[in-house]
């Protein structure tokens, strides 16, 4: 079983007391434990089982405005003592930074809501195996599928965050993840695609048969791809790629990128950065939400943020340190976003597909082609050519490129938002992107 809160709290308190005794003027401790049990299948047979038991502690000590951190997986008291001594010594030798501080006491979370993030159900490996058998049975129903790999993982976590101004809170959470990767082959090509499900509660994950079926269908659809020429064209991003745009957006509005001046969205508060009708929310209190939390990594209360209203940027993601630099109060986003999503657009999925006579539908991108300093974007992609709303044929080995500043202004969203993951987007169309192919 994952460690109880009492055990973690005892370790945290021990460290807080010791740090104070050894000369820290302030300190902050995170103690965590997670146990993950995973079973992997390949071609309908057991391939791997993996049990992972992770303990960890992270200690930050302050001496006035000097700061240093230490982390370890060894929670024995004698080791913690050595580490805290080392941490204090390092703190003394680190230059002051006027912006270093714990959060303001009034901003700390007071009432911790039960967000229903922990499902105590434990699924024995034999049960995971049953699920994967069904899944792979369903994934390999077509003879074009030559390889299947699937995985079922159960994770239980527990943590405590404590600091020297009286905060000491934590909770348990759980996560169940199943995934399937299928490989299909015909005489012209070999292709791979996937599907996965990830939920806090076991009963909410997708049925095994669906997962297998979807991954097989997606993979077979990609067979015998063609190449495309270089041209300017509208691109529809499948939901699973569209949500990646939100990742880039979140990096660009992090207070750290903004205060360092390394974001293309610096100084854009109250400016229109997206097309009309685009709304972006970060909502931490969704029940059973994969990104849900009551407070951030500093203990600051996290509340729903309207990041973008009708295309206008309203908030950055602010932590204490960068907030002090920017003269902003922390909004409980140390460590980043919670449940981030684009609100639904006005058109249906079908109308979006029909909105242009010729359009590229992208299902996968590869490469790290997002530059948040300049906003430049260039990635490799795989997808389909659509004509008059109909999927014509798969295409691959092409790139798509643009700049986020323009791309964000040309987004149209469908009304098919679902809360499947921590970051969610409806299907998205961006007009006027450059495709490079043969």
């Amino acid at each position, binding site marked *: 079983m994952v460690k109880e809160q009492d055990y973690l709290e005892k370790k945290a308190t021990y460290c807080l007391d010791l740090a104070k005794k050894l000369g820290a003027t302030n300190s902050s401790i995170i103690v965590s434990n997670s146990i993950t049990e995973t079973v992997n299948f390949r071609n309908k047979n057991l391939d791997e089982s993996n*049990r992972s038991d992770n*303990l960890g502690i992270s200690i930050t000590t302050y001496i006035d405005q000097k700061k240093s951190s230490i982390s370890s997986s060894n929670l024995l008291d004698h080791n913690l003592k050595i580490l805290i001594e080392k941490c204090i010594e390092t703190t003394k030798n680190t230059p002051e930074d006027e912006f270093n501080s714990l959060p303001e006491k009034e901003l700390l979370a007071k009432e911790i809501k039960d967000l229903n993030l922990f499902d105590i159900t434990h699924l024995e490996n034999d049960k995971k195996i049953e699920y994967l058998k069904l899944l792979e049975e369903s994934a390999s129903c077509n003879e074009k599928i030559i390889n299947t790999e699937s995985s079922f993982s159960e994770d239980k976590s527990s943590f405590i965050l404590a600091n020297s101004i009286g905060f000491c809170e934590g909770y348990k959470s759980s996560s169940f993840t199943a995934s399937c990767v299928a490989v299909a082959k015909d005489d012209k090509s070999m292709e791979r695609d996937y599907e996965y499900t990830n939920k806090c509660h076991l009963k909410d994950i997708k049925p095994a048969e669906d997962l297998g079926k979807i991954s097989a269908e997606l993979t077979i659809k990609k067979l015998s791809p063609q190449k495309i020429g270089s041209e*300017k064209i509208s691109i529809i991003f499948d939901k699973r790629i569209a949500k990646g745009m939100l990742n880039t957006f979140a990096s660009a509005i992090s207070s750290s990128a903004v205060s360092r001046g390394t974001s293309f969205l610096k100084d854009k508060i109250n400016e229109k950065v997206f097309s009309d009708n685009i709304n972006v929310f970060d909502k931490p209190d969704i029940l059973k939400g994969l990104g849900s939390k009551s407070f951030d990594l500093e203990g600051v209360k996290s509340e729903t943020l309207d990041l973008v209203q009708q295309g206008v940027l309203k908030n950055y993601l602010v932590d204490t340190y960068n907030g002090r630099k920017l003269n902003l109060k922390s909004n409980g986003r140390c460590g980043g976003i919670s449940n981030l999503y684009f609100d639904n657009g006005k058109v249906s999925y079908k109308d979006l597909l029909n909105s242009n006579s010729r359009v590229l539908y992208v299902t996968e991108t590869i*490469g790290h082609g997002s530059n948040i300093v300049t906003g430049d974007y260039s990635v490799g992609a795989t997808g389909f050519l659509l004509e008059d709303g109909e999927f014509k044929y798969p295409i691959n080995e092409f790139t798509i*490129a643009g700049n986020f500043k323009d791309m964000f202004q040309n987004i149209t969203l469908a009304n098919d938002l679902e809360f499947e993951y921590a970051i969610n987007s409806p299907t998205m169309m961006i007009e006027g992107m450059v495709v490079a192919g043969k």
Partner: protein
Amino acid sequence: MSNFFDKSDLTRKDVDKIVSDTLKNCDDGELYLEDSKSESILLDDNTIKSSNYNSDLGFGFRAISGEVVAYSHSNEISRESLKNSSANLNSTLKSSNGTYNNEIPKSNKKYYNDINPIEQKSLNSKIEILNKVNNFLRKKDSKVKQVTASFTGEQKSIEIIRLGGEALTDVRPLIRFNVSVMLEKNGRKETGVYGIGGRQSYDDYLKNDNWQNVCEEAFRIASVNLESKPAPAGEMKVVLGPGWPAILIHEAIGHGLEGDFNRKKTSAFHNLMGQKVASEGVTIVDDGTIDKRRGSLTIDDEGTPTERTVLIENGILKNFMQDRLNARLMNTRSTGSGRRENYKHIVLPRMRNTMMLSGNQTQDEMIRSVDKGIFAVSFGGGQVDITSGKFVFNCTEAYEIINGTLGSPIKGATLIGDGPSILKEVSMVGNDMMLDPGIGTCGKAGQGVPVGVAQPSILIDKMTVGGTKL
């Protein structure tokens, strides 16, 4: 060397017994113990932003039967914890009746020294250099708007205990020094990044104020990018510079030649052994034995000594990279390529230092031969889809080539190509092979491991450049 059991309730004899009892009906497996110390000191925005130290201790217990791997890891080195892991492995491999293979090759060669780079240089002297970097760059030019510089250092001690009590150990130092600078001119911002490192002490890399050269290079790249124009879009000729651009080889070819993907037949190369996969003159090796390099290892994470593995010789596919599991299942031997990020992860066949060897042409000849194309000098990250063979990487410094001469620098663009066919498009191989500066980290199945690359300049006849200019 760490003694992993002196603070526990276990004697070495107890451990040997648990290992032997657990693995006796298995084909392979081991208890892997790891004690790592690491630090990172970061200067950013004119101040020391963070100074972190990490000490991590744990074990990973692995049992293999046939194709099935059972793995369990924990941070608690105790009788109870080890027994729990043992029970967990045996519950997965209930019906195992394998024969443990005790053979493991031996070598006395070592490719780095047992040092702890963190302790070899004081915190104050590291902070002093970071401050010098900041002052040097900000004084150099008023266009400099942001400077980030960092030291990261690590010492990792490992011990592998096999059935019968055989123990194999290694102590691995690793450091990296990195500088990133952002320039601004007329409202336009561009960054330049450069770093150095490997398996020696910080001072071995910082001799003769070498930090200044790192600053100059980061500044030069950022300056070039400030003048960059939109990159062309479409298929064209590409000249790659020597050294770090060999990450193209790593992505396009390297991953597809790792044993696991070929055993599972999910690699586009799985049925091409002995066949021509590259132009004549193209020879590619994966070498774990280069002295003190980032990707070098004395032994791999299964205890096998590393070696220089010829992957492609004069265009012909010769070998895959193997760990013990995939080697056994493919009836071959381990090439010392079994690696893991740390004790929390299972072993996979991975690259070490992947290199294309020199030919006899010059970079100048290559550029002169191109009517329309690009010259790529440096790259950011890359990625590959093993199954379809398509791979990408991002230029961080590149120039247009028009009628045999270099034109303007171009903006960061993604290049995309097809792994199994790209090496057949190599029409010239340069005489200027160079190692990368020691900065690569390769990701696979969620595990990052340090790697190196090397190559001479090469000319590729056909690749798709993902620019915005049609």
